[in-house]
């Protein structure tokens, strides 16, 4: 490593920094630091002028390290790195020091102390910079095809979207037919239409699409590789087929809870809302006079705390339908809280009330109780408004139960390194900012496998996931920031600790091929899988694995600098 020649650029940021921190003093101090060949102040280092000043200095003082003390790397690091690159300096020979957010802005009343702190932060940055090494970013091609797991409405929407944009799509559906749970419904709320009208066109479009290959009935057996290069093998009707894709969209849906409550499964006249819809659709529902519906059955309770979101509307839909079929019938809807948000949902609820559906609120500490021999004949419920327990005659009891995660989510999550949370539903990378991506690059999520969603939401998520997935497919290339881990096979003892802590299975034990170490079992990092968290580096007992840009030497040199050690 050539003797470090560090350039330190201290930014006034107008008065943001210069107004509090004595920048000239910091510059003078920086000049005295080890390996600093040049230090200067800039009014705005990020300005055109500042950037060209950096480039000039690299040239003029033959700098091989650059330290900028200004704002935050989270916004400005790319700018300064590319400035270095333009001047022919490897962008990873740049170190950022934050003396604005972390200093001048938070110590406005203490100019002297802020200046001292700024000096120390610069000292720490310089100390680290001395050890920085040039890095090459890992690049790999993207295979221009995608896999969608799940042929429900969300999956089909995603598949069509991808295919219409010109990419090959493998659609994997575990049932023998496309359409998912939607086809089991009787009608769709707010528009009161038969779902078939909606779905069948989409199923046709998918089935006939030249770029969509439907695997059915099929299940994913194995997935290996990383964004751009996934190798997938599926079991298709007993046949093993494998193919390559660049991105994966998970849209496997959810299932409806079958409760062990209110005599469900014992009495013939106790159904879930979904059972009811199937009976209606097949015309199998017999006569009824007194219908009681109970919401939140098995939902929003300690062991299953979440709200399933679609049940209220479903229940209201079917309650109204009962009245429609038999206006003489008494229809009671027992609820804990009604989720009828938005414009047309609220209207839909009012209409149901108009139609004569009776809404009775119950609470978790006073659950409805059913009675009757063979079948349920009455439901007792404590009515809050009347402040008394009332008994409702009942010949049909319908339970609104929540959507629950599919049983194979865990297995799939292991295969895809896509995390699950919320008691088994899949978990996106960021609850707000990255709603349809997984933390694992190149894998996306849509529909009710994430959380209970209605048709509209599922379709929207399908489209969203597809267009997110399209970004790498269009770029055709992934670049990985060169802060990934590297192993020194001479020191590595192959204990495998790194392989155990790595969340992305980027580290693995291999036989070493380097001359002199042939056959030695050592860890090896797949830069494409590595996301640069550095967990392995912290866990490695003897520093054999290091995170580029955050090596032990670099971090310790900062700690030592702060402690006044050189």
């Amino acid at each position: 490593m050539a003797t470090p020649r560090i350039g330190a650029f201290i930014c006034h940021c107008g008065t943001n920094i210069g107004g509090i921190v004595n920048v000239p003093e910091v510059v003078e101090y920086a000049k005295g630091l080890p390996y600093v060949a040049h230090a200067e102040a800039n009014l705005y280092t990020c300005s055109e002028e500042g950037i060209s000043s950096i480039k000039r200095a690299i040239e003029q003082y033959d700098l091989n390290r650059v330290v900028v003390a200004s704002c935050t790397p989270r916004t400005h690091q790319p700018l300064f790195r590319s400035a270095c690159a333009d001047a022919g300096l490897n962008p990873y020979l740049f170190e950022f020091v934050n003396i604005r957010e972390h200093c001048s802005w938070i110590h406005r009343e203490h100019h002297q102390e802020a200046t001292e702190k700024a000096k120390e932060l610069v000292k720490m940055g310089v100390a680290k910079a001395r050890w920085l090494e040039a890095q090459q970013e890992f690049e790999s091609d993207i295979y221009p095809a995608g896999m969608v797991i799940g042929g429900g409405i969300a999956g089909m929407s995603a598949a069509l979207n991808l295919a219409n944009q010109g990419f090959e799509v493998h659609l994997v559906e575990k049932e023998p037919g496309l359409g998912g749970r939607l086809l089991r419904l009787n009608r769709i709320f707010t528009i009161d239409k038969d779902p078939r009208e909606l779905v069948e066109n989409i199923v046709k479009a998918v089935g006939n699409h030249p770029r969509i290959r439907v695997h059915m009935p099929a299940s994913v057996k194995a997935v290996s590789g990383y964004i751009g290069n996934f190798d997938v093998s599926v079991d298709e009707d007993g046949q093993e087929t494998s193919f390559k894709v660049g991105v994966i969209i998970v849209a496997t849906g959810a299932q409806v809870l079958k409760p062990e409550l209110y005599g469900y499964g014992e009495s013939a006249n106790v159904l879930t809302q979904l059972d009811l819809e199937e009976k209606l659709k097949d015309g199998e529902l017999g006569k009824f006079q007194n219908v009681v519906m109970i919401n939140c059955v098995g939902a929003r309770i300690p062991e299953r705390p979440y709200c399933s979101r679609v049940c209220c509307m479903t229940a209201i839909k079917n309650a109204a339908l009962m009245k429609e079929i038999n206006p003489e019938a008494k229809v009671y809807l027992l609820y804990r809280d009604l989720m009828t948000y938005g414009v047309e949902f609220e209207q839909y609820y009012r209409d149901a009330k108009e139609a004569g559906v009776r809404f009775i609120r119950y609470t978790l500490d006073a659950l409805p109780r059913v009675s009757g021999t063979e079948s349920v004949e009455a439901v007792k419920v404590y009515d809050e408004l009347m402040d008394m327990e009332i008994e409702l005659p009942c010949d049909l009891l319908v339970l609104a139960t929540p959507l629950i995660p599919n049983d194979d989510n865990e297995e799939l999550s292991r295969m895809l390194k896509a995390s699950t949370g919320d008691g088994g539903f899949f978990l996106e990378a960021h609850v707000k900012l990255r709603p349809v991506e997984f933390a694992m690059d190149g894998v996306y999520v849509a529909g009710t496998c994430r959380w209970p969603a209605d048709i509209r939401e599922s379709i929207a998520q399908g489209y969203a996931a597809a267009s997110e997935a399209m970004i790498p497919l269009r770029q055709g290339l992934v670049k990985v920031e060169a802060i990934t881990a590297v192993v020194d096979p001479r020191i590595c003892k192959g204990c495998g600790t790194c392989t155990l802590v790595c969340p992305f299975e980027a580290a693995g034990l291999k036989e070493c091929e380097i001359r002199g170490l042939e056959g030695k079992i050592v860890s090896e990092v797949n830069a494409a899988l590595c996301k640069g968290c550095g967990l392995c580096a912290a866990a490695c007992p003897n520093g054999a694995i290091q995170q580029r840009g955050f090596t032990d030497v670099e971090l310790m040199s900062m700690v030592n600098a702060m402690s006044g050690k050189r």
Partner: protein
Amino acid sequence: MLDALAQAYDLIAPVQGNNISFRRVESGSEVTLDYINPMLSAKSTFFPQTETLFRFSRDDSEEFGIEPAREPGRSQVIFGIRACDARSLRLMDMVFDGQHKDSYYLDRRKNTTLMGLACFDYLETCFCPTFGIDPASGEDVDILFSDVGDRFLVEAFTEKGTALLERFAEFFAELRGDEEQLREGRKAGLAGMKRLDVKGIADKMAQLYEGPYWDDIGTRCLGCGICTYLCPTCHCFDIADVSLDEGGERFRCWDSCMFPEFTLMVSGENPRPNQKARVQQRFFHKLKYFHDRNNELACVGCGRCVRHCPVNIDIAQIIDDVSSGKAGNE
């Protein structure tokens, strides 16, 4: 008397801690006499495990100011040193007072008076007679204390010693005359002490570079520093800097030929690549190289390394094997 000594000098004497070792004491009451030989030899009194050589200061102009760290050092007295340790100092003199003079060591040597304590008993690991050491004698000390039962026989062997005795004359009574024979009587306790044959061992070692003898020992050795750090004659050290913003210091500290990085070079090359090579080095240094240079063996038979080696590598055993030819050098 020890109290008085502690007043006048830096008194170093055996103290009972986790184990008995030589320490600076303020009063006689801290001193224990219930020992055969302290765990750590007296070597650290002259050659401390860590010793600052000089300090340097640095100002913004990066100019260095250097000041030697040697404190003039009050003269000191070591009480209770045994014959083996006393001999080891004579051996270390050959190193630190050879063609290169080590003033740090020599100053302390000069300011120190050795008060020996004669041995009339020994540990199973003692074998100092092997090296012509009489554990009950005062050959290498300034003053020798011999416990002859109800009193000590005190003899001075050097001017330093005589001077000190005179200075503290008040503490000493006239001889009653029977001390000599009382001492001779107590010497009986030394009968049966190990005395190994070391005649021509250096040459015998010379034939032992190759051969399987060291294989097992090399495998057995853990490469820890117990033997070298406890050894009164081992004297290797390393030098390093502490560098702070405002200055720093250069210090030296014990090092051990048992450690891999002892001979590790920046290139990553290591001339003594395995523990066998390092073990071999240690015994060859003691039983050959040192002899080649100084015509003495670098061992005084104190037995510390034997007693404390966790895998029972036994220099007495090795000397025996080499001399008797069991080691395969014949």
